[in-house]
C-alpha cells in the first residue's frame, strides 16, 4: 500500500490523472454550490465524449467529431509548448506562432494556385514554415544573445496579432472581420468524416496532428538530435561541457516548437473556417497549449491525452449551457488542474515528510 503511494507520487502520469480527478471534483463542488445539479455537468461531458444524450437516449456522432476537432489545436499547441519545455525553454509564444501560421495559410488559400491536391498542401507547409520561423527567431535571440524567451515570445504574440490584422485586411474581399471565401482547393474538409460524424467540422487536420505527435515522439525519444535537446533541457551546463551544441539545440527546438503551433494555425484556418478571419483578439489556443503540455508532462502521449481532455471540455461547454450549467465551470476545471499540477511539489514534500517519519520510527526517535 505504502509502496504504491510512493510510486504514484513519483510517476508523472499518475499525478496528472490525479490532478484531473481533483480538478473535476472541485468543479463538481462548485456546480453544487451555485445550486445546480452536478449530474448535468457529467451528462454534458458524457455527451461530448460519446455523442450519447442520456436524457432522451438519442445518439449523435457529431459530438465525437467536434470533440476530436477541438482537440487538434490544443494538442498541437501543447506539443509546441512541450517541445520547448523539454529543452528547458518556456514557450509562451505558441499563440503568436499559431496566429502567424493561420495568417499565412489564409493568405495562400486566397492567393495561391488553385490546383486540387496542391493548394491546401502549400498553405499548410507555409503555415508550418512561418510558425517555425516565428519560433526560431526567439530561439536565435535566446541562444545567441541570451534574450529571455518569455519576454520575446510575449512581445511577438502581439506583433503577430497586429501583423495578422494588417495582412488580412489586404486580402481580397476583406471586411473588418473576414475576407472572401476560400476556393474549394484550399479546404481540408474530409467528406468521409463529414458523412460519418453527421456534419461535424472534423477534417484532415486530425491526420496532420497524429503525424505531428509521432514526429514529436520520434525526434525527442529516438534521435540523436532529441538526445542533445533533452540533455540541454535537464542540465544545460553539463550538456555544454559534454560538447553538445546547446546554442543550436535551443534555436532549433524553438523552431520545431513554432512549427507545431504554426500547423495548428493552418489547420484552424483551412479546416474550421471557409473564409479568412481578420482577428480582433487572440484565439488563446497557444496559451491553452501551455496548460495542455503541463498536464501532459510535455510528452507526446501525455500531451495528446491532455489535449483530448481540453477539446472535450470545450465541446461540453455549449452542452452544459443547454443544461443551465455555466460554461465557465470548464475554465475553472482547467485552471484547477493547472494549479494542482503546480502543487505537485507539495505532494513531493508531503512524501518526504512521510519518509522522514518512517525513518525516525526505524531509528527509534521517541
Amino acid at each position, binding site marked *: 500500500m505504502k509502496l504504491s503511494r510512493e510510486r504514484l507520487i513519483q510517476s508523472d502520469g499518475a499525478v496528472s490523472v490525479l490532478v484531473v480527478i481533483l480538478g473535476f471534483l472541485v468543479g463538481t463542488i462548485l456546480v453544487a454550490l451555485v445550486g445546480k445539479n452536478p449530474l448535468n455537468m457529467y451528462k454534458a461531458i458524457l455527451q461530448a465524449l460519446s455523442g450519447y444524450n442520456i436524457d432522451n437516449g438519442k445518439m449523435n456522432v457529431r459530438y465525437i467529431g467536434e470533440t476530436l476537432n477541438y482537440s487538434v489545436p490544443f494538442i498541437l499547441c501543447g506539443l509546441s509548448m512541450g517541445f520547448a519545455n523539454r529543452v528547458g525553454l518556456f514557450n509562451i509564444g505558441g499563440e503568436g506562432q499559431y496566429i502567424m501560421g493561420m495568417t499565412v495559410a489564409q493568405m495562400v488559400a486566397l492567393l495561391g494556385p488553385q490546383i486540387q491536391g496542391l493548394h491546401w498542401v502549400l498553405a499548410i507547409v507555409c503555415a508550418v514554415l512561418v510558425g517555425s520561423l516565428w519560433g526560431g527567431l526567439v530561439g536565435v535571440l535566446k541562444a545567441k544573445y541570451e534574450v529571455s524567451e518569455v519576454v520575446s515570445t510575449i512581445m511577438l504574440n502581439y506583433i503577430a496579432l497586429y501583423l495578422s490584422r494588417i495582412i488580412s485586411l489586404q486580402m481580397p474581399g476583406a471586411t473588418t472581420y473576414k475576407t472572401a471565401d476560400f476556393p474549394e482547393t484550399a479546404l481540408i474538409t474530409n467528406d468521409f468524416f463529414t458523412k460519418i460524424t453527421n456534419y461535424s467540422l472534423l477534417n484532415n487536420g486530425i491526420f496532420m496532428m497524429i503525424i505531428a505527435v509521432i514526429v514529436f515522439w520520434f525526434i525527442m525519444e529516438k*534521435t540523436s538530435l532529441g538526445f542533445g535537446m533533452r540533455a540541454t533541457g*535537464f542540465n544545460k551546463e*553539463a*550538456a555544454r*561541457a*559534454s560538447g553538445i*551544441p546547446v546554442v543550436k539545440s535551443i534555436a532549433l527546438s524553438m523552431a520545431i516548437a513554432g512549427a507545431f503551433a504554426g500547423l495548428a494555425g493552418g489547420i484552424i484556418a483551412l479546416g474550421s473556417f471557409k473564409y479568412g478571419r481578420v482577428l480582433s483578439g487572440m484565439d488563446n489556443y497557444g496559451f491553452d497549449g501551455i496548460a495542455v503540455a503541463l498536464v501532459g508532462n510535455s510528452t507526446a502521449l501525455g500531451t495528446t491525452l491532455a489535449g483530448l481532455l481540453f477539446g472535450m471540455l470545450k465541446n461540453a461547454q455549449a452542452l452544459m449551457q443547454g443544461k443551465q450549467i455555466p460554461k465557465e465551470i470548464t475554465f475553472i476545471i482547467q485552471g484547477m488542474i493547472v494549479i494542482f499540477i503546480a502543487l505537485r511539489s507539495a505532494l513531493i514534500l508531503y512524501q*518526504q*515528510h512521510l519518509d*522522514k517519519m518512517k525513518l525516525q520510527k526505524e531509528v527509534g526517535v521517541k
Partner: protein
Amino acid sequence: MAQLPVGFPHLTTKFVLQPAGDCRLSLNPLESVDSKRADKEELRVSEYAIEMKNITKTFPGVVANDKVTLQVRKQEIHALLGENGAGKSTLMSILFGSYIADSGEILLDGKPVEIKNPNVATSLGIGMVHQHFKLVQNFTVTENIVLGMEPVKGRVLDLKSASKRVAELSKQYGLQVDPDALIEDISVGQQQRVEILKTLYRNANIIIFDEPTAVLTPQEIDELMDILKALRAEGKTILLITHKLREIKEVSDRCTVLRRGTYIGTVDVADVSEQELAEMMVGRAVKFEIEKPEKTPGDVMLSLQHLEVKDENGAVKIKDLNLDIHDGEIVGVAGVDGNGQSELLGAITGLIPLSNGSIVLDGEPIEQLTIRERIEKGLGYIPEDRRRYGVVGEFTIAENSAIKSYYKSPYRKQFGILDFEAMKSGAEHLIDQFDIRSAEGPITKAGSLSGGNQQKVIVAREISLSPKVLVVAQPTRGLDVGAIEYIRKRIIDERMKGRAILLVSLELDEIMNLCDRIATISKGSIVAVNKQHEVTEREIGMMMAGSHKEAQA
C-alpha cells in the same frame, strides 16, 4: 518534536523573540528566567562545557545523526572528525540552532537548553565561524562585526566605540586586523579573523570552526593554529570540524569521531596516531602513501601559451599563462581558490572564451575549436562541480556514459536514430570495469547515485574515450576515502598509459602526492613550476600567497 524537559518551551519562546543584539545585556538568560529550576543543577558543577546526548536527526532518506553523543570539556580544543557525509556539520548545525534535533538533549555547563535558532545559540555564548564567510564585501571590518547589533548613542550609530572594542578584542586574542579596512581589501585569512572577532564581540565562550583551513594557504593555517591556541588560553572552548588529521594532531586536545552518522568514539589526541584516527574515521585500514611508479615523460602533448582570459566585466582573470604538459606526466596546478583556476579550466575546455594566447594539443592549435571539436581531438575533462558540469542527473548511467559520443557510431545509426541498447551494453561494460555501484545498473538515474559513484561514471566515460590529454579538476572533493583512493589510482593508471594529465586541485596534499611537476598559480599566472620532490609544501604556500620572489631569494 524534540525531547524536552517539561516547562521549557515557554522559556525558549522568549529567547526566540529576543534580538541577537540584546545578548550582551543578559549574559546567561538561563539563570534569570529559570532560576527555580536551575537551583538543583547549579550545585552540580559540570566538567563539560557542552554535552550533546543521543542526538538523532533525520532528513528525507538519510539519518544524518544516529544517537550521537558529544562531550566537550571546558577550555579544550575538541576536534570533530569524520568523512564527508559523516554528520559533523549536521551535529554542529544542531548545536548552533540551524537545525532542530529529532531527539536527544543538549546541556551547556550541565544545564539542559533548547537551541531553537542561531539567535538563541548566540545568546547562550555559542559562536560559529562558517566555512563560507558571511561578510558584506563593501563594509568595513567593524561594520561587519557589529552588523545586527549596532551600538547606538541616542539614535545615532556609534561606530567609534565599536571600532575601539574591536581593536581591544583583536589585541587581546592576537587577531591582527585593521578595524577600519574594507572586507574586499583584506586577505581571506584576515576575513576569517573578522568572523572570529564577530563571535568574540558577541561574547561567545564556545566557538565552532567549520572546516576553517579549507580556504587558507599553509602559512595562514599555521597562523590560525596559533589563534586557536590563544583562544583556548583565554578561556574559550573550541570545536573544530575537520577531516584533516594533521591539524587535529597539532592543536586538538581530544577528538570525537563520527562515521556515517554514528558516534565511533572520543579519544585523547595525544594517545593516538594519525593512522589510528584515520582508521576510526574510515572504519578500516587506510593507506596514506600513493604508489606511483617511475615514468619518463614523453613529448609535449598540451601546450598553453600566453593565455589571457577576461571575465564578463573585462577584468583580467588569467594573464600571460604558460605551461607545457608532457605525455605520461601529471602536472598539478596549486593555488588558493579564486586565483584563476576555474578560468584556466574553462579556457582549455572551451567553456570560457580565450581573449588571447594559444592552446596547442598534440601539435595542433585548438583554441578556435568548439567544445565538441576539442573533445574529438582528444581532450578529456573531469570537471570540478560534477553535478553541474559532469553528469545530467535525470539521465541514466547509460545516457551519461554516451553523452560525449552519442552522435557517432556505434550509438548513432541511420537517420539519426540512436541505439539505446548499445548505450546500455557500453555502460554495462564500464560499470563492471570501474566498479560503479548502482541500484538498477545502466538504467539507474545518475542523480540517484552517491557522489563517489557519480564521479566514477565521469571518470569511466572520460577514460573510455581514450583522451590524449586529461584535464582533472578537484577529482576527490566530497568523496569518501575509498572512492578517493580509487580515483587517484585511476589517474595514475592513465599516466602510466602515457596520457598527459593536468590536475587542478585546492587540496595541496593531493597535488604534492600525485603530481610529477607542480605549477603554482597566483593572480592568474603560473609563478613557478617545480619537480615533485624538489619543493616543500611551505615553499608552495609562499608562492600561492604571491610572494614567490621572497621564496626564491
